[in-house]
């Protein structure tokens, strides 16, 4: 029988269907009362007369893929029945919403594109419940968000400053505060120790910026700037997560090495350690902030003087007791040195000069003065 004939014969006894087409081209038919529960489909049927046959299937928005459509239709199929009690509906909703977060997001998107507000309300509430009370890392992990706020072009002080008003932000990432151009002290009415440290850091940097301009020892400094910036950059890139715990342990465990002739060695050490999150858990500059807080504030002048005359100071946060430096054989060292140099050149050409300067300034704060003896061991002498 043709479609027309079938339509004539007892139309009231036949269930009417709406034809829907998803973005991938697949066409399916859905019971009319179920499909009409979606405002978008309802609009298409009533105002545009679509959906009555396969050729005139309603094209659904791209955000509705077949899997999501199936879920949405399940939802509609349940809720379009008028006789259900509130308790039943709520119970269904609670079971319905149990799915992994990826699907939940897709479902929210699909429901929104179909203008199905009750489902959007339900899913957005569920997503809010997932987000609530979690730390930024947890949220990033659950939703696969990129942790890209450490890039230069990214941050500004505002969101971080505001986050500081809510002091239970875990892993408060000072890294991207430091990219704040102005180095202006943050208002610390809440007496947050991190803000205090930060302000001191800013003060130091401003001071050093001035002094650096005075001491125009270009050659040595530039070379050092390069080296240090690489170290800094490497540890910076890797030093994202910073726990208060880590800070505390770092205060106890940090070692500062002063290399006489082998600046590149230390770079290489940094390079080999890049994958170890723990060891590079602290941005060098952060560390200096912590340390700076702990020790005397007159670091600026002493360190600068040191820079000019002494050998290269390499700032390293070392959480391991093993002294890796001394164990790399020369051949490997050379290879690593070359790699690092290339890397440094590439990085240096991309990063604004100012950033390098600022980062390298962090190097200059050395409250603890170490020297390396001939046999490679470190003697720590307090100052």
């Amino acid at each position, binding site marked *: 029988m043709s479609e027309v004939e079938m339509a004539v014969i007892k139309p009231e006894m036949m269930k009417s269907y709406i034809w829907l087409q998803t973005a991938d081209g697949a066409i399916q038919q859905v019971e009319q009362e179920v499909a009409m529960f979606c405002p978008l489909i309802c609009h298409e049927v009533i105002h545009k007369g679509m959906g009555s046959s396969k050729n005139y299937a309603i094209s659904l928005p791209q955000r509705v893929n077949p899997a999501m459509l199936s879920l949405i239709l399940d939802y509609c199929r349940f809720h379009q029945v008028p006789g259900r009690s509130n308790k039943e509906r709520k119970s269904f909703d609670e079971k319905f919403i149990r799915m992994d977060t990826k699907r939940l*997001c897709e479902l929210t*998107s699909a429901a929104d594109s179909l203008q199905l507000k009750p489902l959007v309300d339900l899913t957005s509430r569920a997503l*809010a419940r997932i987000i609530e009370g979690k730390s930024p890392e947890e949220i*990033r992990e659950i939703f696969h968000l990129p942790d890209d706020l450490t890039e230069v072009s990214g941050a500004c002080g505002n969101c971080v400053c*505001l986050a500081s008003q809510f002091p*239970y932000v875990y892993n408060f*990432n000072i890294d991207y505060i430091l990219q704040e151009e102005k180095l202006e002290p943050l208002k610390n009415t809440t007496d947050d120790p991190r803000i205090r440290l930060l302000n001191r850091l800013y003060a130091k940097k401003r001071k050093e910026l001035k002094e650096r301009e005075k001491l125009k020892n270009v050659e040595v400094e530039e070379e050092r700037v390069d080296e240090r910036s690489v170290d800094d950059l490497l540890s910076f890139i890797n030093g994202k997560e910073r726990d208060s715990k880590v800070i505390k342990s770092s205060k106890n465990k940090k070692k500062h090495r002063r290399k006489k002739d082998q600046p590149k060695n230390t770079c290489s050490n940094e390079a080999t350690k890049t994958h170890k999150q723990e060891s590079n858990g602290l941005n060098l500059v952060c560390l200096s902030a912590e340390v700076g807080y702990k020790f005397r504030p007159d670091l600026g002048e002493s360190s600068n003087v040191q820079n000019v005359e002494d050998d290269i100071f390499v700032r390293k946060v070392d959480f391991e007791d093993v002294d890796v430096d001394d164990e790399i054989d020369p051949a490997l060292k050379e290879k690593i040195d070359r790699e690092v140099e290339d890397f440094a050149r590439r990085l240096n050409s991309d990063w604004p000069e100012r950033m390098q300067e600022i980062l390298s300034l962090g190097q200059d704060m050395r409250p603890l003065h170490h020297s390396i003896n001939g046999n490679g061991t470190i003697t720590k002498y307090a100052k």
Partner: protein
Amino acid sequence: MKQREPPKSPCKIETELDKLSNLPAHVIDQILSQLPIKDAVRTSVLSKKWRYKWATIPHLVFDNLCVAISSQEQTLVKNKLVNIVDHVLLLHTGPIIKFKLSHRDLLGVSDIDRWILHISRSSIKEFILEIWKGQRYKVPSCLFSCQNLIHLELFNCLLKPPSTFKGFRNLKSLDLQHITLAQDVFENLISSCPMLERLTLMNFDGFTHLNIDAPNLQFFDIGGVFDDVNFENTFHLALVSIGLYVNVKTDQTAPGNSCKLLRFFVHLPHIRRLEIQSYFLKYLAVGNVPSRLPRPCADLNYLSVRINFNELEENLAALCLLRSSPNLQELEMLARPEEAGMGVLTNFWEVDHWNSMFSQLRIVKILGISGIRSELEFINFVLSNSPVLERMTIKPASPEGGWDLVKELLRFRRASVRAEIIYLDS
């Protein structure tokens, strides 16, 4: 069935996995609006895209959750709160639809004036301000220029609108508790909000005559001290709860006073739920109470009354009301604690006068009784006149004499074969 695809770069994989960040802005707003403000703002440190997603959330709620209550002293907490609100308001962009400020350490400060000014510039629809402690906070005049307001809720405030105030054109819901306003201000406020559907007034002062002229009013809930209440044009009023917290003065019972009960119900033809609390029944009983109302309350299906069973006038008023509510389904009688010097009422609730008065009554609760004669007679009365009663719950005020009470209850005849009597221990 997965197709083999070339391995993607980590960035690409991540952007594909990240389904959340690319949801439409209004959906993200909706999600973030359902988080406490603290969590919403903290999303700014999640990733680049998320830096300012929170800044467009239409609902801003600052309550006890947003500042961690530590052992810090009050001013510190208050300063923190002020800081937070200042920062958030400054960084927020876009319309603010709902604003709620309710923190227990917040006193009426000039900061709030400043915030209200900011809010009033942004087409706010819902405004809730609760000052937990201290004197009444004088609401600044800029609040009265928010013509988009749909819901206004104030706690512990003083309202003195400017003379140019012409009402809130769009206001549907008004909730004023512990507030002060003058009589004329109150009347003007009510009558100049034509869309008003819900009105809540608790513990108010500055006015004592409640003249409610609100054609769209559906819900009315008051509790406080007043001299009289008059409804005008309130034909849609369906839910009413009134509590008069102070005893009615006896000089008002002089003859010549028209019956307040009559006047009360004149403009409430469609009332569905009625709660008469504290001393309001006594107020209604003033004047000559008729045996029944001229027009029955055909829609009334729930009635809750606080009554002193020993007081004749109150019982008369209750009887009148019960006789005029043929479709009552649920009844609750709360006994007011005995007042000294009252007479004893007996033989008031006699059984066989009005058969099947309660033809629809299914659920009855009688709470706080002490076992006096009048109460027992009333219970008997209800049991005998409710053919479809399903459940009667009785709760005494104190455990003494409970056993005797139960023995009496057992003897009462029940018109409904399905009736359960549930006796709750006090």
